[in-house]
């Protein structure tokens, strides 16, 4: 039994790798292909034209990447600030009509963002919020917040109020109760919500495009015309770059979280 485990594990690992990694191979090939005629399985020759355009030159890719990341992180930070008190209230207080509040919070997942954003655009125009990073951040909150609230709510569901009462009896103030009792328990939920929030914010095209009105240029704004305009090489290169940045961001977050727990553990052992 114990002998078959590593074998099984490696098969599973390979399968998973094929499932996730395989779709990237045609993307990589197409981003460097120079002449790729049916029925050849591989391109006849290679060229780095697409990568050169995307990474060097005047395409503004790096600026767009930093704008994308900036927006994603601000959106996520605001989401955390909004979602923790909201989840707290939704889980812990017996409210009448709670279902209605929940439905409103989760509506952006069900209703296509296009519908909402068309209306928001006119209002934002009057408020002078279009063409600003700030306006785009606000608009990104609607499709991302529901996931964050959902994730934090799940964490709150498993946090008994007794724990906080116990801390209170031991003399902890409200801030210190939140920091030492509530937050560590919520952290996995917050991390899950934050990953989703970052990914969703990074991949927004339409909302960014309409609210940013061309003045807030994120990676999808550069990428979309190439997908629909039919330059597969450049579209592939951009897609790979996009995937790479999303994966790196997630790995970075994961590493930070792990480090936090390690420090926590070390702190607990020492103290």
């Amino acid at each position, binding site marked *: 039994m114990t002998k078959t485990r590593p074998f099984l594990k490696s098969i599973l690992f390979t399968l998973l790798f094929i499932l996730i990694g395989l779709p990237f191979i045609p993307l990589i090939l197409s981003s460097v*292909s*120079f*002449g*790729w*005629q*049916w*029925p050849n399985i591989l391109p006849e*020759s290679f*060229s780095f*034209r*697409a990568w050169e*355009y995307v990474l060097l*030159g*005047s*395409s503004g890719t790096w600026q767009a990447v930093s704008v994308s990341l900036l927006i994603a992180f601000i959106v996520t930070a*605001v989401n955390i*600030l*909004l979602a923790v*008190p*909201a989840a*707290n*209230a939704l889980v812990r*207080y017996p409210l009448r009509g709670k279902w209605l509040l929940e439905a409103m919070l989760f509506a952006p997942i069900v209703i296509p963002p296009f519908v909402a954003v068309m209306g928001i*655009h*006119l209002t934002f*125009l*009057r*408020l*002078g*919020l279009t*063409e*600003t990073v*700030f*306006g785009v951040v*606000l608009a990104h909150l609607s499709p991302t917040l529901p996931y964050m609230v959902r994730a934090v709510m799940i964490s709150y569901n498993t946090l008994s109020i007794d724990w906080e009462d116990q801390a209170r009896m031991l003399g902890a103030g409200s801030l210190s109760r939140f920091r030492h009792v509530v937050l560590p328990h919520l952290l996995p939920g917050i991390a899950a919500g934050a990953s989703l929030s970052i990914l969703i914010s990074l991949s927004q095209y339409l909302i960014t*495009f*309409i609210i940013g*009105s*061309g*003045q807030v*240029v994120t990676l999808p*704004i*550069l990428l*979309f*015309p*190439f997908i*629909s*305009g*039919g*330059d*597969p*090489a*450049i579209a592939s290169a951009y897609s790979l770059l996009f995937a790479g940045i999303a994966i790196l961001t997630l790995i970075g977050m994961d590493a930070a979280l792990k480090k936090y727990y390690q420090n926590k553990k070390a702190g607990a052992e020492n103290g």
Partner: protein
Amino acid sequence: MKKFSLLAPGFLVLTLAACSEETGDGAAAEADSLQTSDWEEVSGAATGQEVNMYMWGGNDNINRYLDEWVAPRLKEEHDVELNRVPMNDSQDIINQLVDEKSAGKTKGSMDIIWINGENFKAAKDNELLWGDFSGQLPNFNDYVDAEAPEIATDFGEPVDGLEAPWGKAQFVFVHDENKSEDPPKSMAELAEWVQDNPGQFTYPALPDFTGSAFIRHVLYETTGGYEQYQQPAADIEDLEARLEPMWQYLNRIEPYLWREGETYPESLAKQDQLFASGEIGMTMSYDPALAASEVLKGRFPESTRTFVLVGGTLANTHFLSIPFNSSAKAGAMVAINKMMSPEAQTAKLSPENWGDLSALDLEKLSPEQQQAMNDVDLGAATLPLEELEQHRLPELSADYIEIIEKGWMENVAKD
């Protein structure tokens, strides 16, 4: 505590919103005098301005031409900063301007927009364009034949100086010389070619721009020429009966198309991909040098060639315009003037940069300028300029295009 928890998100949004900037609205009456003042004043006012050019951003050659050829020269010669804003569809430009107009936004960030045809008509009808400015541009006055129908009208709509011509396009068919040596020269020959080469031909499903243009050629050739359609569609009483031969033609070739005509490529981009991978033997383009530029990129095979029909192919002009609420109108005028200069138009003609036909009248150029333009290597896949010139047909106005696109759905796509 309970109340606070619920209100906290609301407070946050409010405080954040309060921090945002307010739009000033006093700047409405800016510089309409630019339409009458002399060029010295205009270029003086343009100095130091930043100009945002909103245009379709899906071609790296075009993007590069603007970022690396036009922008540095504008900066150096006129101290005007050109900032290209990529759009996915020119229709989005119009939608955005409509919203800005109804919200009363007077200081917009679009300074130059790249439009033609339906988008121009929509912009003109909704009064989204600034005004009659093209007559102010020295390069327009010196090098453009303002009376020529393709300059004075845009898909049948009078231009009225609201936009300045940037380049010309002409419809060409694209084929692989190694696979079909003798391309068809008329719609009748094309039908034979399609039957002899089943699965090798198709066209993008309407309302794709190029697919729709292909069908207009079928219309011209099967119903007896373009002259009869120079009047408004509503004036032709038996229009439906007149269009009948076109639907018959399209239905006759349908079984021999790619996938037996059960489906059509949803866009020209998809069709080009089929041609690039060798799955079909012919594609089409409203840009006569696009094939040459795709060969340079290695997407289309070296043996790619283009051809026009003996009866001619459709040609149109694309334009640059200035929106009503542009914040840098003088800068926009200087930039448009620069893009219409013989040097800029010659650079634009080269397939390495873009391969777009010049909007200027060749006869108005100096002998050296003409020479420079004729010396541009258009690539083996592009037809000589004279051959294109001799086979130009005028476009149909937008009302016909709508009728044809609807009719295609009912008569061809549905069966």
